[in-house]
């Protein structure tokens, strides 16, 4: 399977009369986009805005972030099985508006958080303060059930990203990245002496606002499944998780999954990368046992020497993470876990909801309880009420000058458990 990601570097977004890319500037015809999105009768109103790096702008509550792209060669337009006819993703040529992002906001329930600050302290913690963001704020018609509301906003974001991505169809890319990998037999023949490594990507799969999708299938309904890494970075996996702001994997992060890209980088050099196992994080204990047994079995059948497991969320998924680790280590497979920590304001509490002695190699992506101070914004895109939720965590979190303290868990992507962020670990 061979995929070319052809990056067109975007240096600004403007709203204008046409949707086009010229000299790295993406212009978007907001009216045309709004009309397109309003073809969905469930949408009453759409507001389009732009947030640029450095501006004193706050976006809240963020639902998803999506990278605008267009497939110019090969099967599977957009997000197959979701916004377009089902095709297998992972092959062909894709033009990417690199540096641009579509950000959807919409308050489906009152307690949603998820903030992107484009400047100052907040900007340090979220990777989406560095992208030029086209913010799509969707108001649904009245009386829509929350799960329909969630679906409406999810689909609108994907459609908007497809519409914007189309602007890059005929533009020459600034750089071309090639991702190519053959069958296990072929790759093992090429690299007989390199250790075989599998990536297990766990996804929250638990119900409203806590879902993930592969080719449009809700991952609550799947057994762990093997993907070619190209499928995920070509739009096969999308996010329906809108509660865990700091460690949810947005669609953008699936499209640019840093674990996959880093493993690809090492493929043929230090490792033989065998692929991705997508593993649902279920809610029942028997569901978890089944999933973890099945994941370990797939790794064993593939002949993995090593496995990297990334988590999504905190709480009950910690149990899955450690059960998978235990099963793999006991089968003689070296296992590295990637997770964030919930270790209190001072960082001294036990970081995970569960422990196991087999977890001997763990990469921390940050402490979700770390407190940061966000300055007042000049402009807020989205819903002011959500700021009240953000600022309502404890007494004294709102300062007189309007700045507020919040825990990192409110900041989008701040402790990304696939490492798509800016925290690094320091050894003492």
């Amino acid at each position, binding site marked *: 399977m061979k995929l070319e990601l052809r990056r067109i570097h975007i240096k600004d977004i403007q709203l204008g009369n046409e949707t086009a890319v010229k000299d790295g500037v993406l212009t978007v015809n907001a009216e045309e986009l709004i009309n397109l999105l309003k073809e969905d009768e469930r949408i009453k109103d759409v507001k389009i805005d732009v947030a640029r790096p450095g501006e004193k702008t706050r976006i809240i509550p963020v639902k998803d972030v999506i990278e605008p792209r267009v497939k110019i060669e090969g099967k599977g337009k957009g997000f197959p099985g979701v916004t377009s006819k089902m095709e297998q993703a992972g092959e062909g040529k894709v033009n990417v508006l690199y540096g641009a992002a579509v950000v959807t906001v919409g308050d489906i*329930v*009152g*307690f*949603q*958080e998820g903030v992107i600050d484009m400047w100052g302290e907040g900007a340090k913690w979220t990777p989406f303060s560095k992208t030029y963001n086209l913010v799509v704020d969707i108001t649904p018609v009245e009386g829509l059930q*929350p*799960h329909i509301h969630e679906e409406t906003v999810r689909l609108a974001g994907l459609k908007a990203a497809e519409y914007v991505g189309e602007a890059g169809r005929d533009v020459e890319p600034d750089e071309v990245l090639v991702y190519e990998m053959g069958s296990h037999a072929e790759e093992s023949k090429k690299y007989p002496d390199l250790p075989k490594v599998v990536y297990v990507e766990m996804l*929250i799969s*638990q*119900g*409203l*606002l*806590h879902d993930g999708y592969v080719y449009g299938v809700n991952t*609550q309904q799947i057994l762990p499944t093997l993907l070619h890494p190209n499928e995920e970075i070509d739009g096969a996996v999308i996010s329906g998780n809108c*509660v*865990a*702001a*700091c*460690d*949810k994997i947005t669609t953008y992060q699936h499209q640019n999954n840093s674990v996959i890209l880093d493993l690809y980088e090492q493929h043929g050099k230090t490792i033989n990368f065998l692929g991705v196992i997508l593993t649902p*994080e*279920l*809610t*029942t*204990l*028997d*569901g*978890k046992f*089944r999933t973890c047994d099945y994941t370990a079995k797939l790794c064993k059948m593939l002949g993995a020497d090593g496995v990297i497991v990334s988590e*999504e*969320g*905190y*709480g*009950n*998924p*910690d*149990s899955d993470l450690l059960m998978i680790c235990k099963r793999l280590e006991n089968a003689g497979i070296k296992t590295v876990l990637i997770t964030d920590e*919930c270790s*209190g*304001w001072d960082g001294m*509490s*036990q970081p*995970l*909801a*569960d*422990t196991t002695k087999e977890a001997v190699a763990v990469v921390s992506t940050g402490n*979700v*309880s770390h407190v940061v101070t966000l300055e007042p914004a000049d402009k807020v895109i989205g819903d002011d009420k959500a700021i*009240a*939720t953000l600022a*309502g*965590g*404890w007494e004294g979190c709102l300062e007189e000058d309007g700045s507020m303290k919040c*825990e990192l*868990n409110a900041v989008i992507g701040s402790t990304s458990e696939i490492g798509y962020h800016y925290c690094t670990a320091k050894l003492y």
Partner: protein
Amino acid sequence: MDKSLNYKIVTNNPRVKENYKEVIFIDGSFEDVLLRVRDLVHKGYELISHPLGASIRVIFSPYRSIIIGKKLNEINETHVEIIESSIQSYRNLMQRRKPDTKNSEDYAFIDNELLKSSLEEFRRIYIN
């Protein structure tokens, strides 16, 4: 629903109390729900759903519903470990935070939705 399934929902969520018959209603907090589940698991009741949610935000919820199963002949030690470590994590997390009561109604709604998904998952595993 689920005549062949033997389960009870330990909950402090009034919405769940209204919607389901198989309820052990706790007139108390999220932590009180965890403590009752712990007592029942120590008495031999099977733990069906994980005591904690999947995100920090949901752990700030004032409401929680947890599914337990039938009483077993022996105490399940894995289940004991899970409920005990969940209580410890909950207390750790809530050291400085209070449950988010401003959004109680939405939390009651989401707890009910997540419970519904959990029961569907439970049914898929046991009935299919």
